[in-house]
């Protein structure tokens, strides 16, 4: 696959307005059509930053020696690391970055933990779109895999699209 890994070589664009015109509007989104995704190498630094943001202190995520002696035989990421992976594995023109996108709810199922050093891939699409109380909704369908092809987690979400 001729895909560039998202990495330090191409810094993450934090101005979500910059590529706003390249992104699909609700009208353009085709349910069932795969979204373009990028493989992402998960680092211990990224896990530690996520842990700091939500106050996670479990040594399984942060202390290599303790994690090695624990049930997973090494460091793992917290289950909700998909919050980061969702943006890390999608390109700057992905419509989830459209300014004003409002998250309306999520459900995630967890299979095995992601680990530092994993190269994570995402299979994602809009599964459905609908209009409710004059608001434009899209149903997201996402599955994250590790480099062995094992499912890490799968999720369904709804966002309200900017008008």
């Amino acid at each position, binding site marked *: 696959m001729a895909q560039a890994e998202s990495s330090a070589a191409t810094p993450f664009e*934090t101005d979500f307005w910059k590529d706003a015109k390249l992104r699909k509007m609700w009208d353009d989104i085709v349910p069932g059509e795969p979204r373009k995704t990028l493989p992402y190498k998960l680092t211990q630094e990224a896990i530690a930053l*996520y842990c700091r943001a939500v106050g996670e202190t479990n040594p399984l995520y942060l202390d290599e020696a303790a994690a090695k002696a624990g049930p997973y035989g090494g460091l793992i990421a917290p*289950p*909700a690391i998909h919050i980061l992976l969702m943006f890390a594995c999608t390109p700057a023109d992905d419509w989830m970055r459209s300014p*004003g996108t*409002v998250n309306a*709810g999520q*459900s995630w199922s967890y299979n095995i933990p992601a680990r530092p050093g994993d190269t994570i891939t995402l299979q994602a699409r809009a599964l459905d779109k609908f209009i409710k109380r004059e608001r434009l909704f899209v149903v997201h369908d996402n599955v994250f895999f590790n480099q062995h092809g094992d499912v890490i987690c799968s999720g369904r979400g709804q966002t309200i699209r900017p008008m």
Partner: protein
Amino acid sequence: MTSANFDALKAGDTIDGPAFAVSRESIRLFCDASLDYNPLHLDDDYMKGDFGKTNFGGIIMHGMNNFGLISRMLTDWALPAGAIHRRLETRWLKPVKPGDTIRPAGTIKAKQTTAKSRWVLVDVAVQNQRGETVAAGEAMLEFPASAKAS
């Protein structure tokens, strides 16, 4: 707080989560940790505008910050007992803003034994300092038959 012991757990038992102080800095840190730089979480000028019939009046916390806190509560409770956080479903009911203090909590709803494992369903909610529920949902934890008894 109820201990994570499958046999002893019963409907109505509770799980306490950590208090979390929301500030502009905590929201900015969550942007950096999640790579979600949606202007909803960054740009006060943008947030002066209307979103359909809604006006937030200023930046709001990421909904997924609630999700991350609920997940933290569940794993901190379950992992020491050898139980596994298998599912979390949430919806957002009210925006959370800088200056708010939020806290997740869980209530055991049901237990189920299947052909190969044991499961606990937990109602989860996040409340702010005014006792308003800002997020609610349901979680599923697996207690493998080999999980420790306490």
